[in-house]
């Protein structure tokens, strides 16, 4: 309640200080929950512009959005009228049937949208995508140039480059990686496993199948990379890894496209900023599939709210992603899927990922269970306490137990 009051006050102050934008909404309640990174903050601020008159707009942007969006949309009426999600997190909302099909609203207010922005499941538009994201190589051009190393295109080349940087004495731990136990570690496993050409499930079923040669190769590569990382790597998420980069401690890392802009922030040493360069995702093990996943971020509208609130929410978010929101500040924040977007240098990596035919993250109802089990079960292997076979057997057993409980098996 207290937080809600603060959010309302913030919304009202925003209204008072900014010019009346006029989103064409007469009344309604808009409450948006989403992740916290610059592009999403821009969207939240854009929707806030619609507050005023009978319209209240609140945003709750936090890294913990996945923990609160489902509980906050389950009630009736739902606390959140919209959740900003990605292709993994929309699944949890669809599984629990808390978001509504947007076909009517798109027909009525969605003229500016391109067809590719519509996330359609069985003919129902369940989300509107506004940006794309992927993890890809980020490297320090000055360090590679100084040692005469070519930009790595495979993880094997990355290992070799890391070895040369370390032996040159330039950096002690030249590789950065978001390998924090939990979601991040599992994400790197997913990337690397896809790069090795693995399939997570037996086709057409929810039966997991990762305890195979692809899995062993994946873990072996992750282990080799970790030898070139800060010894605390199991506690490093994307934020901590970015901090390592900004401090000039690492020269090579697989990083989210949406975070590249922030690596060039004002607080970072100018030499590091000038040498921060990106390339497409790398392949691994002689494969041709990029060891990365493609992601979209988009918005959804809650099911358990009045039609008027749903319409207000949709219109406020449509206002936030209108083509003329693109300017010098917002354009480099992401690879926008908005009409009229011109790629900026920060977007090169994500475009390269798309051009390489990188696979999208699997939108399966049970993929989250696998992801979660991997985050907990692979840490013993990374610490050298288990063999790859034991770790993957553990992952399969943990997943199977959870999937049985959830009724998928």
């Amino acid at each position: 309640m207290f937080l809600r009051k603060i959010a309302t006050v913030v919304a009202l102050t925003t209204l008072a200080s900014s010019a009346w934008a006029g989103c064409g909404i007469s009344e309604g309640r808009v409450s948006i929950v989403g992740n916290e990174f610059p592009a999403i903050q821009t969207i939240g601020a854009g929707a806030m512009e619609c507050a005023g008159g009978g319209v209240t707009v609140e945003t709750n942007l936090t890294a913990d959005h996945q923990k609160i969006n489902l509980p906050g949309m389950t009630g009736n009426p739902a606390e959140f009228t919209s959740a900003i999600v990605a292709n993994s997190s929309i699944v949890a909302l669809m599984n629990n049937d808390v978001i509504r099909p947007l076909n009517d609203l798109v027909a009525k207010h969605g003229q500016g949208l391109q067809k590719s922005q519509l996330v359609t499941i069985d003919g129902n538009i369940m989300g509107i995508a506004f940006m794309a994201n992927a993890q890809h190589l980020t490297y320090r051009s000055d360090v590679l140039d100084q040692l005469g190393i070519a930009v790595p295109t495979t993880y094997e080349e990355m290992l070799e480059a890391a070895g040369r940087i370390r032996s040159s004495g330039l950096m002690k731990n030249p590789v950065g990686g978001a390998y924090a136990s939990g979601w991040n570690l599992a994400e790197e496993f997913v990337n690397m496993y896809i790069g090795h050409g693995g399939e997570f499930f037996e086709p057409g079923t929810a039966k997991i199948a990762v305890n195979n040669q692809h899995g062993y190769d994946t873990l072996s590569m992750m282990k080799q990379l970790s030898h070139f990382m800060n010894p605390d790597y199991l506690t490093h998420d994307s934020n901590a890894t970015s901090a390592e980069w900004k401090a000039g401690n690492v020269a090579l890392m697989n990083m989210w496209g949406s975070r590249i802009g922030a690596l060039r922030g004002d607080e970072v040493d100018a030499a590091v900023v000038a040498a921060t360069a990106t390339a497409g995702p790398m392949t691994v093990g002689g494969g041709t599939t990029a060891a990365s996943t493609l992601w979209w971020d988009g918005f959804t509208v809650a099911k358990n709210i009045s039609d008027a609130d749903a319409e207000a929410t949709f219109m406020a978010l449509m206002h936030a992603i209108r083509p003329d929101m693109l300017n010098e500040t917002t354009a480099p924040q992401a690879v926008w899927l908005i009409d009229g977007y011109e790629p900026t240098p920060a977007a090169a990596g994500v475009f390269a990922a798309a051009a390489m035919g990188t696979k999208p993250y699997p939108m399966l109802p049970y993929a989250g269970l696998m992801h979660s089990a991997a985050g907990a079960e692979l840490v013993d292997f990374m610490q050298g306490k288990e063999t790859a076979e034991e770790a993957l057997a553990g992952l399969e057993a943990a997943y199977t137990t959870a999937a049985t409980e959830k009724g998928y098996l």
Partner: protein
Amino acid sequence: MKHKTFFWFFLPTALAMFLFIALPLTSIVSQSLHTPHDQVLIVVESCDPFGCKSETTIDHLASKKINEEKPQGKWVGFQIYTDRNHLAFKEVGELWENKTNFIDFVSSLRDLPFYRAMGFTLTYTFVVTPLVILFGFIIALAVNSLHRHLKGFMVFFSLLPMIVTPLVGSLILFWMIDARGILGSGLQELFADPTLSLKASTGLTWITLIVYGVWHSAPFAFIVFYAGLQTVPKETIEAAMIDGATRFQQTMHVVVPHLSPLVAFVALIQLMDNFRVFEPIVGFSASAHATSLSWIIWNDIGQEIRLLSSAATTSVLTIIGVIILLMPVLIRTWREFNPEK
């Protein structure tokens, strides 16, 4: 007290206990015996910015019908309790059959999430609790012997670790012990080992968490003992002094026996609190090395997967664990208040 007076006096408490303890308990016990229904999956055409393909999804109309018929979910009895992610009877049985020796068996239990969590939780509980009592007592004695003008300030100062929110306290320490933090790099200098990392080794992480636990909880024991020290009868101390008892002997033979009921009280509260250790694990991002039952519950429901039955089961197991842990102390207290006739 008259029965009627007692009834009216106790009623608000009883009501609150019923609403906030008994009802939720019933709810989690019921939840732990049910799971969601089998999911009805269908393959549909799904399109996103990266193209269209056939994708498996949940058939909501069909699922809704099943849920409306049986909103409780599917009855599974104790299946969740015995599955691999909890008590893992089958897996433990297999490990026991295939063991080479007992130590090997115990260390292989580490692969099972429940036993892994219990390993850390019990170590933490049984190391932190006595240390908290010991340090709390020492601080209380030290503060009590100060000049009265200094006392107020020192009491406040000693309480600080408890006043700081656990998550904030652990985050501050987490940054300080980072390999590039002030304590982390200080230790590297001290031991002349540039690769020393408190966060990378399981043993050192456990020690860090335990040190944090003692730091955070010692003020609680301190303030209880300090209050107790104010009630130590002066006459007995003086009598002991006349008998020629040293300061140490006075403490051991007069003060400690006087405070012993308080020790039982602090032990009770600390056993309960430490068994539910949670914030430091999150604050120190220590889940790779140390987990606890509370952390498992948080992990089950905190993510998008929401394993409610699993979380409920772990909650019930936590309660059972607390009861077992407190049993000796409770029995002792019972005996003290109901002397045998």
